[in-house]
């Protein structure tokens, strides 16, 4: 990638590289091209740092907020074993947030700043968690299919270029395999159960299908910006490619159970090996992500309450001589 070192700030394609040292940039890009990882104290372009902080932080927020719809069913999970399993899953998700916040921290944003940006609504998190889990079956659909989507995204990102993010994701992906199996087991139990159970899981699937199709986001704009992020291995796959991968892996499994996906146009186009589907309603997506969803207000209010209630405990534990330094890795 040495060829990309020359920076012409007048050229739109390179605007995001303006002001970067061309020699350092060339070394940085060559390292990534060789498949080596970038570590926290390495030189990196400002835009690389900015994009990674934004991405890892939002990922962390999604784990924390994602624990809320599922947590709704902890007290009423059917049976002791499922209650234990759901608690373990929710604990994992909160642990994932800790791992991700730590990775983002190595890039220079403090955990306090990340939490502040979450609770004031400045930072985003995955839009799917602005929807409620109406029934136990909703919690099962989330554990199976939302986690399935998350795994596709996380496995792709684990091959990215930033060392601490990759390490966090490797650990996360191992735990996600339990979430997926647990979710699938629950959905299969309902789908092969009594007519009432089948109805319950079908209704949950119908409710969750639009948010699931929104999960990977709208088609990427093909821009020089996206191209650079892909070259830097910050963005590892296009939104549409990940959505296709999800459909390819999970639609047959859903159909196996005799469940109906609420999209009459959904079918595999065998000629091109891709799935046709009705274009998701992106206006609805935008409306919800900008605060208009059924649970946006609740999610943030709950986070604020939790931060506030724990504050005096943390203050009491803080020693005067404590001094923060950025974690190493």
């Amino acid at each position: 990638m040495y060829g990309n070192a020359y920076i012409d700030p007048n050229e739109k394609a390179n605007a995001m590289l303006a002001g970067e040292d061309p020699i350092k940039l060339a070394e940085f890009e060559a390292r990534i091209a060789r498949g080596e990882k970038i570590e926290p104290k390495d030189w990196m372009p400002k835009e690389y740092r900015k994009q990674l902080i934004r991405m890892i932080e939002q990922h962390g927020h999604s784990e924390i907020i994602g624990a809320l719809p599922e947590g709704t069913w902890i007290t009423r999970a059917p049976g002791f074993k499922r209650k234990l399993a759901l608690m373990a899953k929710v604990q994992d998700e909160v642990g994932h947030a800790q791992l991700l916040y730590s990775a983002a921290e190595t890039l220079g944003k403090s955990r306090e700043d990340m939490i502040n940006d979450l609770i004031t609504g400045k930072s985003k998190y995955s839009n799917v968690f602005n929807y409620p889990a109406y029934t136990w079956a909703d919690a099962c659909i989330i554990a199976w299919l939302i986690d399935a989507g998350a795994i596709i995204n996380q496995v792709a990102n684990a091959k990215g270029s930033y060392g601490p993010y990759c390490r966090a994701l490797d650990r996360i992906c191992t735990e996600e395999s339990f979430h997926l199996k647990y979710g699938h087991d629950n959905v299969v139990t309902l789908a092969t159960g009594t007519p009432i159970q089948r109805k319950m899981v079908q209704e949950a699937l119908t409710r969750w299908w639009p948010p699931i199709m929104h999960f990977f986001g709208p088609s990427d704009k093909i821009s020089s910006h996206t191209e650079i992020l892909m070259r830097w291995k910050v963005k590892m796959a296009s939104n549409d490619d990940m959505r296709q991968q999800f459909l390819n892996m999970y639609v047959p499994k859903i159909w196996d159970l005799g469940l109906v996906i609420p999209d009459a146009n959904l079918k595999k186009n065998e000629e091109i090996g891709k799935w046709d589907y009705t274009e998701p309603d992106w206006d609805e997506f935008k409306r919800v992500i900008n605060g208009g969803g059924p649970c946006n207000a609740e999610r943030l209010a709950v986070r604020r309450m939790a931060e506030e209630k724990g504050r005096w405990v943390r203050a009491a534990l803080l020693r005067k001589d404590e001094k923060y330094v950025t974690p190493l890795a």
Partner: protein
Amino acid sequence: MINSLDPRIKREQINEDNTIAPLTEMDQFETYEVFHQKKRGDQHVHVGIVHAPNAEMALLFGKEQFGRRGLSVNIWVVKTSNVFASDYDDADIFETVPEKQYREAGGYKVMDKINKYKKENKA
């Protein structure tokens, strides 16, 4: 008041527009690097960090975060500020190491000489 589907949240009687003062510096404490040993005889391996107000709590969080699955027999926590690390920019200090064949078992090959000697001295 939030009318949540989650009974635990409903009981809290939270206002939707509650506001709180922002978290201030050190609210989340300093960090500890965590080293995890899977079983006796293994090395302790660095697995990540935890935020904690003291070493005892760092051990507790370390156990919860890195020891909830699989095997574990021991963890260490070390304040990040107490770790001295080399600089990636100085990685060239290791550059000549692979050349030092005289340090490797593979750097010593004698069979050719032995075979030649045996051939020449055959009775």
